[in-house]
């Protein structure tokens, strides 16, 4: 086999891998779009669900999902930025860096159902909060913290050393350097990470189904400690009534909405990555 044949063969293998990959995604998307598009109309989006979701729309499910991930965003962002700052500006010891990296990757690798069980045991049972959307937000926040930390840390540690040195050489103290030099340039990574994390969080079923959501019959929560209904758990409920064609049809519609929300978050992350790119990296 000469070099040219080998080269072409390798090229063909790479191409088929790439095509297979994109085909799976396009297949999934087209099935969901084809089935879901029939269901989606203003009425479906803006009305309450009835008869365990088989009739009516998904308005409160959407509100519930938005509440859950907004809570998660507010809780996770400051913690994650703090962690990333600590890693990039204060921790100089390479052993500590390795340990913290291991912890963060470890947290990222924990299966989501474990978070759900943890939330159930610790918050709902031990702290006796009851099933509450706020606890769901806390658990989702814990889940997405690693994504935000890694993304913020990456953008903070890629700020060239000369920016820090120039600021220090002007007599600025560490706090000023962090707030005026590091954060303005590192925030892009944090926001990108946040949106990627939220895109993942919005679709999570397992962590919220035990601790934050009721399967049906719930409208707007009156306090932090009341359940909501959310899109992923709603889809689960509908899919369990697979014999009811109307319920299944609504499940397709809800899936499409969920996928759209996911895409909006992912595209926002991409958009922020491009527009807020720090000057030092252009």
């Amino acid at each position, binding site marked *: 086999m000469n070099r040219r044949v080998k080269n072409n063969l390798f090229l063909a293998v790479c191409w088929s891998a790439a095509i297979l990959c994109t085909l799976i995604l396009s297949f999934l998307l087209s099935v969901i779009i084809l089935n879901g598009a029939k269901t989606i109309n203003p009425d479906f989006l803006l009305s309450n669900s009835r008869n365990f979701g088989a009739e009516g729309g998904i308005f409160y499910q959407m509100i519930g999902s938005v509440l859950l991930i907004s809570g998660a965003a507010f809780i996770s962002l400051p913690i994650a930025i703090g962690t990333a700052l600590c890693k990039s500006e204060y921790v*100089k010891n390479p052993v500590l860096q390795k340990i913290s990296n291991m912890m963060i990757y470890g947290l990222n690798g924990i299966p989501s159902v474990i978070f759900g069980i943890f939330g159930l045991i610790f918050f709902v049972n031990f702290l006796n909060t009851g099933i509450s959307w706020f606890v769901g937000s806390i658990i989702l926040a814990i889940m997405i913290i690693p994504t935000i930390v890694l993304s913020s840390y990456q953008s903070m540690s890629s700020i*060239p050393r*000369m*920016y*820090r*040195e*120039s*600021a*220090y*050489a*002007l*007599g*600025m*103290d560490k706090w*000023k350097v962090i707030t*005026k*030099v590091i954060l*303005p*340039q590192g925030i892009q990574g944090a926001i990108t990470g946040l949106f990627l994390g939220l895109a993942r969080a919005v679709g999570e079923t397992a962590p919220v189904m035990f601790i934050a959501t009721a399967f049906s019959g719930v409208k707007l929560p009156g306090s932090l400690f009341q359940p909501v209904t959310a899109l992923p758990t709603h889809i689960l409920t509908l899919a369990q009534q697979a014999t009811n064609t109307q319920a299944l049809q609504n499940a397709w519609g809800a899936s499409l909405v969920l996928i759209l929300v996911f895409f909006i978050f992912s595209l926002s992350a991409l958009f922020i990555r491009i527009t807020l790119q*720090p*000057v*030092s990296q252009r």
Partner: protein
Amino acid sequence: MIKMESHIMQIPKLIENTVIEMNHFHVWYHNSHALKDFHIRFQKEQITCIIGPSGSGKSTMIRSINRINDDVDGFTYQGNILFHGHMHSHTVYQNGFDVNHLRTQIGMVFQKPCVFPRSIYENVLFGIKHTKKLLKQEKQQIVEENLRAVSLWDEVSYRLHEKASTLSIGQQQRLCIARTLAVKPTVILLDEPTSSLDHFPFLPMP
């Protein structure tokens, strides 16, 4: 005995004209010994040039004076550096010493210009703004005065609020010098600030 006395007599005179002195100063980066037993006295209100081949420790030496080396991985030192300020003399490497205040008195310009992602106006004020409270009028005055000092005023006076990164590299370096001058340091350390610029030596400097 007489010899000793004459020696003692000389010291106050020397110190009077000295602004920075390094005694038996050593620097290591991890295991590499970058600066060996260095002695020098810098005179007040004088320009002192340090010349040497690359890698001979010129940068290490001047970066030790304002302690900007402190954060470099593996940096260790031995010996001492004295800074004779307006009122007092300080040992620069001393526990609890106010390094940020030292850096307002010993300014530094680096080899490559490094402007912050803000306007030209903001860049001139970047250092002084954070060490002192300024009125709007004072700000305007400081910006004009220091941009004039580096002959940048005429080139940028009509676009002070544009991004500093729109300036050419040479202009950026002059902006960095203006930013350092604005803090009104007693000493300025220049680490080859003209090395990446070709037209820069012709710049009329005060």
